[in-house]
């Protein structure tokens, strides 16, 4: 592995100062499950690695039914699914954090890292987009909030500017009659990179039969995780039915721009977008309180 300077930052300000000074030559380390592998394989070259795990703010995980869920950038997956209140409120997010890597990886890997690594196949990002999550970013000139669907701009590249650091991810409070789900397809049953991932979130009216809001996001079918607003928009105002769900899936398929690689052909990926969108919507609807006849 290449030599680098390891800097354990203790404040956000310190981390920002180093990032501003070093630019591309510095990289933030939280769980390290992507970064260390990249450094070892020479896929990323840096001069400094800034460990943020000793910064209190980025280790905060808080849930308040009134204000929602706040996940510090250095909070590992296991803490999220290990909280009964969070697991009960956001099962669609739990779907994603509990299938990233394996148990050991989940002990280290963070949502912040998954987001900043900006892989097109990242498991947590479609789930976060579906849940209308946003990223809180801080730089030398203060804070700004970025919707997750705008955060990734290319494989391995994000909206973060020189000197900016991700502080936390925020998910809005749970509304009644709403539910989310994340599904991915891999050829085996664990420890693999998504061939396709689909995050879905829906809200129903008080009768539990009509869709009032819906969001669909796709993974591994475009250079970045892909929000498909038209797929969710088409559901609004409709009565829940298999046909309605199938239509949304068809719209999602049309938005996907998959490529062929070792994990699957474009054709198989496109097909799976349809299958998984349908399935994820059905799970989300069930979690939102829809009772099929």
């Amino acid at each position, binding site marked *: 592995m290449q030599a680098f300077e390891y800097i354990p930052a203790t404040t956000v300000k310190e981390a920002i100062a180093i990032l501003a000074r070093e630019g591309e030559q510095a990289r933030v380390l939280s769980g390290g499950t992507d970064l260390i592998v990249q450094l070892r394989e020479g896929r990323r070259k840096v001069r400094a690695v800034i460990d943020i795990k000793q910064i209190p703010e980025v280790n905060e995980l808080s849930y308040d039914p009134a204000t929602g869920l706040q996940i510090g950038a250095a909070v590992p997956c296991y803490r999220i699914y290990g909280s009964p209140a969070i697991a009960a409120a956001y099962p669609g997010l739990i779907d994603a954090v509990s299938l990233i890597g394996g148990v050991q990886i989940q002990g280290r890997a963070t949502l912040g890292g998954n987001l900043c690594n900006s892989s097109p196949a990242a498991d947590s990002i479609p789930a976060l987009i579906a849940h209308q999550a946003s990223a809180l970013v801080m730089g030398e000139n203060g804070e700004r909030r970025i919707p997750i669907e705008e955060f990734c701009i290319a494989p391995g590249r994000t909206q973060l500017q020189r000197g900016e650091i991700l502080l936390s991810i925020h998910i809005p409070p749970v509304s009644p009659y709403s539910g989310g789900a994340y599904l991915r397809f891999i*050829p085996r049953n664990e420890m693999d*990179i998504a061939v396709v991932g689909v995050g879905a979130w829906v809200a129903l009216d008080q009768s539990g039969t009509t869709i009032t809001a819906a969001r669909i996001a796709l993974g591994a079918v475009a250079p970045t995780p892909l929000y498909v607003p038209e797929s969710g928009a088409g559901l609004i105002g409709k009565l829940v039915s298999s046909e309605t769900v199938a239509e949304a899936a068809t719209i999602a398929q049309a938005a996907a721009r998959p490529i062929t690689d070792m994990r699957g052909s474009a054709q*198989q990926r496109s097909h799976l977008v349809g299958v998984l969108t349908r399935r994820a919507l059905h799970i989300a609807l069930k979690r939102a309180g829809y009772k099929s006849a």
Partner: protein
Amino acid sequence: MTPPIIQAIMTVGTSLPRIDALSKVTGEAHYPGDLVMPGMAHAKVLFARRPHARVISIDASAARAMPGVLAVFTGADLPVNEYGLVLFDAPVMVAPAASAATETSFDGVVRHEGEKIALIVAETEKIAARARDLITVIYEDMPVIASIHDAVKPDAMQIHPHYAGNLMHEYRIRRGDIDAGFAGADVIIEDTYFTGAQEHAYLQPEAGLAYVDEAGRITVQVAGQWVHEDQEQIAHALGLPKDQVRVIYPSIGGAFGGREDMSVQIVLALAAWKLNRPVKIIWTREESIIGHHKRHPMWAHARLGARRDGTLVAAEVTLIADAGPYAYTTTKVLGNATVMCVGPYVVPNVAINSRAVVTNNIPSGAFRGFGAPQALFVAETQMNKLAAALGVDAVALRLKNLLRDGSITVNNTPIPPGCTITDVVQKCVAAAAVAVSAPAISGQAGSRFVTGRGFACGHKNIGFSFGAPENCAATVELHGKTTVERAVVYHAGADCGQGAHTVFLQVAAETLGLPIEKITLVASDTATSGSSGSASASRLTFMASHSIVGAARAALDKWREGERPAVAHFVYRPRATTPMDPITGEADPNITYGYVAQSADIVIDRETGQFHVRRLVCADDVGRAVNPQQVVGQIEGGVVQALGWTGLENFAQRNGKVLSQHFSTYLIPSVFDVPDVVDSVLVENPDPHGAMGIRGMAEMPFLVVAPAVVAAIHDATGVWINELPITPERLRAALQK
């Protein structure tokens, strides 16, 4: 009256804990990568990483000049720059033509991506790696032949000077009258099949430590499958007498056939010899994946004819194996596939043509099953299609045609006595008929899930075939005064993780009437034991038990005669086998066979094309289970490894370049991919050839998982799959047709 020196002691047949269990779980056991010696230097290999090229020049001056670098060795440093298990047809390191001390007709050309160019030895591994990157090699690229079909085209470039027309080897079997046979058939099944390459994926990548021992021998500690064969290959390449080379195996982290051929052995020995310093190497996973051979991809076209009542009348098979550029064990693997490709049946009229073809892919070689899984995938899928075409039960069809004692095989000779496949099939079917509670199908219920059951059976040789010299040595030493107080067993056999050394002690304890704690095993060292032959071909328990029983009995005789300590050496030689006649294939090819039958219950997600095995019943005639727990371990491990080959493991090569160089793209089964239930049915019909009735069994659980799964897919969907691996994409495409 003198007290009996032998007490009845029951160890064979009990699940004694493995003798290495504690040291392995505590981390005390040393694998080759754990070994350290004072003054140890570190080595890295420069691989060619191109599939076909002439080496014009190698300039290592910058690497040699780097501080901390001790030496850079190339093929020119090897007295005899060649290796190979059945034929010396591969260069140890590819050197520019006319540079080697002993020039070979095949040197000077890189023929696959994993060829070695140089070995860099330095004070640290890091320096060795940096120096490796300073070596300049000038290549002249040559056309790459990456498929068996391109290799046999009339205008194809000849890849290896020994193999005209890119044909490495061929076999031919003719029995009866094939035309008359098919003329008498009421039903003929005809299809084309393909099976893919497979990576061994053992936990421990290649590693080793070489040094000059106290007796002045070049000593290599490494993980392998046959210490004496490694010794011979090292001695050959270094131009040294065998007794100046010593090979020792510490703990071995899996082998499965993948350690039968040379990886780090010769280059490490060369470095320790030339530098007179201990030299260590550890390959990364990526180096391991391109650095050792794979299971042979095979293509087959098959016809099977039967009468309406199900009696088989004719079988015709053309088999083509992708050998890669060098022989390794290809000629033997192809021979096995040839003998097994019509399955364990009586077929009066047979025509088989098989060929091994040279390509620029990674060399193919030994892998659990040694050609039989590919052959039986063809044979058993043909049988299942025949049952479907006749509208008869697949098991009943088999019972009508199975080999039995006295039956004549495709090689026109009787099957060796102890042919118990009928019993194995019946026991498998009986076990499968007993319902077990498997977990419910997860996810949403509904029509997207379909379930099915499939059956297949097979046989495979135990021990070396076709007249290859076959023997196994053991030495037993008995110590004590009036009674035997303790014993020492010397045996070369390799414990690759299968539990062989525990089994050796159990057999010794039973024969000597001594508790196992009173017996010491000195194992896997060419300096202390005669040759055992390899840990392969399901042969080690079969062969070693004979040798240990023989040596133990001889030592007891000497003890009775008053010898103290009583020491006896014994070499077991089984009945001789014969090679196949080049025109007819007539032969007595194998000592004996192992028999297996498997039943698979699967569930398929029709929408994604993913299948999962819910229950797999494996009945295996093991003769006598020396250690039942270890036998079950072999069955479960073999089944899972076979499921990987069947459905997941897609060893991708494009134009001679390996695409799946990591475990992130080469997917082996994880714990969530194993069947929900594996029923191991241990059948114990004593083998008339076996000591204590013991049969070999280690490859049998691998043999027919794939055709059983294919039959289950057909049962569930009505679709036949002819190509492995059955990836979700491939299965979904088949379902859509």
